[in-house]
């Protein structure tokens, strides 16, 4: 029997945060007035990737 290490609530907040980060990526791309704003991309892209990976792995019952 597998044990679920993450609560569905935590994963739900993760997905909401991932959606917020995607909106932030779109806003940075669309409204950036200085190239320095693009330095946020690594945090935003890797954040979205990590949160979505967590949600997918949770859905597949990896944890």
């Amino acid at each position, binding site marked *: 029997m597998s044990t679920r290490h993450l609560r569905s609530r935590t994963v739900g907040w993760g997905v909401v945060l991932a959606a917020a980060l995607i909106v932030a*990526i779109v806003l*940075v*791309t*669309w409204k*950036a*007035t*200085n*190239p*320095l*704003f*693009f*330095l946020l*991309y*690594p945090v935003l*892209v*890797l954040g979205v*990737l990590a949160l979505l990976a967590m949600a997918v792995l949770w859905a597949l019952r990896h944890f």
Partner: protein
Amino acid sequence: MDEERRVEQSKVTVRWIVAVVLCIAAVYLRRHEAIGTSWTVIIGLTAAVAVANLVFAAILRRGAPRWLRYVTTATDLLLASLFVGYSGGSGSPFYYVYFIILVSNSIRYGMAMAVFVALIFNMAYVAVLLVHPVRGELTSEGVKILAFWGVALYAGYLATRFQRQARILQAYEETIADLRTRFDEGEGAER
């Protein structure tokens, strides 16, 4: 010879080829006034690539430390950024060089290297944009950086899958070899 050393030595060979091709392309474009890069910069950057390659080759004669892959890749990206910066910034015809570095390293080293390349590219390209400001909106430049992240993550994913399949195949080969040895021993004992 260990795998890491073999891979880095192949990178040294490829770096010589790419450096020669880029030098010829830069000289051609400069003579036809398609780029405004000075001769001093073209010669200086070519010399810098040559010196870096000689240093890497010298290090590889003794062995291949694990950090070397990150140092060689970061050096390649920084030299490519200088080249892109001096040949027109965001409008440089040498922008594709970033993709050569990305794909060749991601295929060799997997997802961690793909993320590392995208990270260094992101910072280096922002520096290029600061030195060569773009007229008008920056959206297209943002899309370029995001596209690079997309290619990096996809290349890293494919490389990881390929590495996993290679490991599975190696395990199968070892099992078959082991079974064959046991079978031969059993047949010998029966005789």
